[in-house]
């Protein structure tokens, strides 16, 4: 066998082993009942977000003053609000806002946080100290308060809310990524890669990152849940989504003013947040069990 054939065979073995690892994890995930429930809920929420305007029974922003504060009925499943707008239609469209904010905010946190965590864990002690003390500083401000302060500086609105939530969660990803890197940085395959002449960036991206992905994937799922809650809170405070666009948190805030006469205005958006966040939490727990069965409790 030539040297190149040996190399090809090793690569094939590695790819095969990695495929089996992920396939096993996938199989374990499919057997996880709560994770399946989470996936079911999230599929519905994603469908609502994807097909939103096409499947709403009414125009979500269409006012109907003759039907203000109408209770749940066959024509309006979740009643109407103070402008006569259909709550169910607005909840469907609100799914888009929640998912969009969750995805963008968590992407910001994942990319920046994981990048900083990898650098801190793999870099020299000075780099590690500087980055992690910076993360300690950010972490010492409660996440929601930090998000509120950032929105205060950048201005109200959905885009700034996404950035603010993302920035507030950077320290969590940095800590997880750093801890994972510290666990493997002296493993033989890293030393071997270095001995073969691989540069730091190549080692980080090709050897370290794939091996610390499991905890990061789990954290992404759980952070999506937190991000949706944070967006709802910011919109509830009037700092996130601005009227007339529907967002679950905003709808809840609007419902609060009328909960004596029409409790459903706030009840259904809260239920939508609860189920979506629960879906992400179940999926996150399922992924953790599937990717690292040793951690199962």
């Amino acid at each position: 066998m030539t040297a190149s054939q040996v190399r090809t065979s090793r690569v094939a073995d590695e790819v095969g082993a990695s495929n089996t690892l992920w396939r096993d994890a996938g199989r374990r995930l499919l057997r996880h009942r709560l994770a399946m429930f989470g996936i079911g809920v999230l599929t519905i929420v994603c469908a609502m977000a994807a097909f939103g305007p096409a499947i709403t029974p009414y125009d979500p922003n269409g006012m109907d003053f003759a039907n203000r504060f109408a209770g749940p009925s066959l024509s309006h499943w979740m009643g109407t609000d103070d402008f006569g707008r259909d709550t169910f239609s607005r909840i469907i469209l609100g799914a888009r806002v929640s998912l969009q904010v969750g995805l963008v905010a968590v992407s910001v946190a994942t990319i920046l946080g994981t990048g900083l965590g990898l650098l801190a864990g793999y870099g020299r002690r000075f780099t590690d100290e500087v980055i992690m003390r910076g993360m300690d500083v950010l972490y010492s401000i409660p996440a929601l308060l930090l998000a509120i302060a950032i929105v205060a500086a950048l201005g109200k609105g959905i885009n700034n809310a996404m950035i603010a939530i993302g920035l507030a969660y950077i320290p969590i990803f940095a800590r997880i990524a750093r801890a994972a890197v510290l666990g493997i940085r002296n493993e033989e395959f890293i030393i071997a890669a270095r001995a073969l002449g691989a540069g730091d960036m190549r080692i980080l991206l090709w050897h370290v990152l794939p091996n610390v992905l499991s905890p990061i994937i789990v954290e992404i799922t759980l952070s999506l849940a937190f991000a949706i809650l944070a967006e709802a809170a910011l919109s509830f405070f009037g700092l996130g989504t601005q009227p007339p666009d529907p967002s679950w948190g905003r709808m809840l805030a609007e419902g609060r003013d009328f909960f004596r006469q029409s409790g459903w205005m706030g009840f259904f958006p809260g239920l939508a947040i609860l189920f979506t966040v629960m879906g992400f939490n179940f999926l996150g727990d399922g992924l953790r069990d599937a990717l690292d069965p040793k951690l199962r409790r």
Partner: protein
Amino acid sequence: MNYQYIVQRLLSALVVVLGVTVVVFMIVQIVPGDPARVMLGPYANDEAVQGLRDRLGLNRPVIEQYLSWLGALAQGDFGQSLLNGQAVAPQLWGRIGPSFELALVSLLVGLAIAFPVGIISALKPGSGIDIAATIFSQIGVSIPSFWMGIMLVIIFSLNLSLLPPSGYTPITEDPGDWFAHIALPAFTAGFVSASIMTRFIRSAMLDVLSANYVQTARAKGLGERSVVLRHALRNAMINIVTIIGLQINALFSGVVIVEVVFSWPGLGRLALNAVLERDYPLLQGTVLIVAVMFTMVNLLVDLLYFVLDPRIEYA
């Protein structure tokens, strides 16, 4: 006790607080455009904007602004509120008490729920009570606290008329009324914390319950209560305290929301009012005080390790 570690830990807390001052100072610096114009609103005249710029020193170099702001902070001067022109510091001091009370009582509520539920479900894994605890903790982690707060007000204040829907009475004035007012907000913030802590207490207890020393304690013929409380729980405490420490960040975030829902006169509500009124000096002061409180609590949790586990030595 390792005094060198305590000094080291105090110094690192000081560095964090100094870092927080930089972040808090930057709140005004990253405002897009002219911060003075943003603070006064679009209809303010040019003289007023220029006056505020001079008062806040916004024309000076950033480093100079920071150092002079930090110098004033060191003397307890947090600046003046833009909204009412009063000094920020006295407004903050008046809010620390109610916020601290709410955070403390919420934590106690959380612990009072999490300990028994976590321990019982660890003792009977897979049982009905364990499944119920899992469902409870999943709901607690996922529930928006402001929604839960509103639902509790509808049930306990509007329908049953048992508790007041909002407001605050100092404990020194009327302890009974104080309790009636704090019950719903503390339960709302505490419930969310309880659900997270329950999971970790269960997990920590499961770890120690299978340890050799616990089996030895059982083999010696000790009663189950003694095995659980004196041998297992004591050893699980070190992990549990770590989790409680981590929980405090979430708890403080939860308290911000709960304060707004229940009109609780704490720092969270003050911060939100400051944001809505674009009162940046007030917002900066509030964020700084909360971060300092949080850093101090974390420091206390770290030092608590020595008390809980005398074997711990820090190099």
